[in-house]
């Protein structure tokens, strides 16, 4: 018997287990998936939880429900990967593997910025990238009387790069609905050159910030959070006051990657952009947020990548050359508030543009344009996630590679 081991039972790992179990001969291949945590979170829901749009129970389920029969599910801490020996050390046993899939994701590292995880963490300094952060922020917003709200992200890459902007738009809607928008001053603080950084998006969406009365501070490279004066300070000495800071800390790959000596500065694993094979070890493949590929860290990217990776695992098993197929395809709904949303569809090379999706010329979804229908799409996505995406079921009309059909490209 041969052993395929998947590390991480999040979005990407769970999808790979579901794809591969029916395709790998049960008499030849054991599949083991390792994850120490019992709960599977619907991470896109962390954006909605603070605004009472979703409840706690809508964003979490027991992970085991999504692991297919015939896959050995091990709930233990992973100590170290020993790639030269093709072994993985768990807390109390060692697994041998013939093939390894790393799907250990990324997480926030607030300790990377001085003072961020300080005495006011989850008091008036919040993240919304963890269940706890999102829930604590919801409780804070329910009773907050207003003041200066700063929405900030530390540096790229972050998981779901549009989430900080979406948070800003949803905050505007939330306070308007509560009849207290006049009491809240919203500023978006970014390390980049603008709230929007791609030409087409800047052109199409710049109006949103004005319409919602959101101020923007650009090129802000945060050095520290000053918890005594409630200020964020950047390396040039610029200071910005806040009453409530909602920040996205530095995102990093799991410490396991550092312990195993397999990552870059941010613990992301060097990965072939198109085959998803590790650049250092032929029998190691990497998927989802754990890779260093220059695609967005998003569930949709993991979904598209999982289809290519499934084919490549089967090719590898047969000793055939891998497909250099993955194009960085991402497809993301972006909440803009007032029950509207945008949709973007792009890849490594093609920036988001206007158009129709998924059926060229018809839609029904519109690219890079606000619509109510897009918002329903985003809400429907939660059902799609639990019932289709995790199970590895392809989404009708939406291929793994990005199509230029229906897109307005110059």
């Amino acid at each position, binding site marked *: 018997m041969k052993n395929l081991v998947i590390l991480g039972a999040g979005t990407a790992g769970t999808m790979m287990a579901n794809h591969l179990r029916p395709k790998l001969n049960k008499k030849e291949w054991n599949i083991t998936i390792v994850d120490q945590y019992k709960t599977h979170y619907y991470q896109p829901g962390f954006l909605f939880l603070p605004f009472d749009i979703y409840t706690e129970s809508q964003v979490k389920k027991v992970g085991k429900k999504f692991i297919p029969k015939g896959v050995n599910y091990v709930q233990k801490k992973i100590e170290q990967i020993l790639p030269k020996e093709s072994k993985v050390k768990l807390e109390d046993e060692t697994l041998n593997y013939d093939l390894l899939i790393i799907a250990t994701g990324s997480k926030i590292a607030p300790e*990377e*910025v001085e003072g961020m995880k300080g005495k006011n963490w989850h008091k008036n300094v919040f993240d919304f990238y963890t269940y706890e952060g999102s829930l604590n922020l919801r409780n804070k917003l329910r009773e907050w009387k207003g003041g200066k709200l700063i929405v900030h992200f*530390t*540096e*790229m*890459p972050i998981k779901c*790069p*549009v989430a900080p*902007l979406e948070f800003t738009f949803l905050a505007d809607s939330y306070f308007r609905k509560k009849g207290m928008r006049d009491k809240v001053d919203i500023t978006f603080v970014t*390390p*980049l*050159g603008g709230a*929007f*950084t*791609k*030409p087409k*998006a800047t052109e199409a*969406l710049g109006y949103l910030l004005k319409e919602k009365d959101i101020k923007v501070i*650009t*090129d802000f*490279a945060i*050095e520290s959070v000053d918890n005594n004066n409630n200020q964020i300070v950047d*390396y*040039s000495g610029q200071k910005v006051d806040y009453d409530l800071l909602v920040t996205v800390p*530095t995102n990093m790959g799991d410490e396991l990657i550092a312990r195993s000596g397999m990552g*870059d*500065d*941010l613990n992301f694993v*060097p990965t072939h952009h198109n085959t998803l094979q590790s650049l250092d070890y032929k029998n190691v493949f990497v998927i989802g947020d754990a890779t*260093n590929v*220059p695609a*967005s860290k998003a569930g949709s990217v993991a979904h598209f990548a999982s289809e290519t990776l499934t084919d490549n695992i089967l090719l590898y098993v047969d000793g055939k050359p891998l497909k250099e197929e993955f194009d960085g395809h*991402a497809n*993301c709904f*972006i909440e803009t508030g007032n029950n509207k949303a945008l949709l*973007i569809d*792009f890849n490594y090379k093609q920036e*988001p543009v206007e158009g129709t999706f998924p059926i060229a010329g018809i839609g029904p979804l519109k690219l890079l344009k606000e619509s109510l229908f897009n918002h329903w799409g985003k809400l429907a996505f939660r059902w799609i996630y639990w019932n289709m995406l995790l199970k590895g079921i392809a989404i009708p009309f939406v291929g793994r590679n990005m199509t230029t059909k229906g897109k307005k490209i110059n």
Partner: protein
Amino acid sequence: MEAVLAGIKVMVTDEGYLTDFSQWTKEIGAEIAKEDGITMTERHWEVINWIQEQVKAGNGLSVRGIKKSGVIDIKEFYSLFPGGPLKLATKIAGVPKPKSCI
């Protein structure tokens, strides 16, 4: 769009970033710097070389990452490239400006 830098025709974005790194030369870098009011010194070039190496290796660029690398301390980085150091240094280096997905 097309631009002429240091006497050479190159392709640049609306904001003046080279779209094809293979067209970059040190002279072009110096001319971009001059347009932004920066006179290049050996120290500037050390930083530019480091940035180019990072991009070639597929690594992301951030001010915090530069601090961690030890190639330059942050105060000096800001004094060499006043204003938006990363934005300016990437432009001079002929590599893409740090971006998000939209």
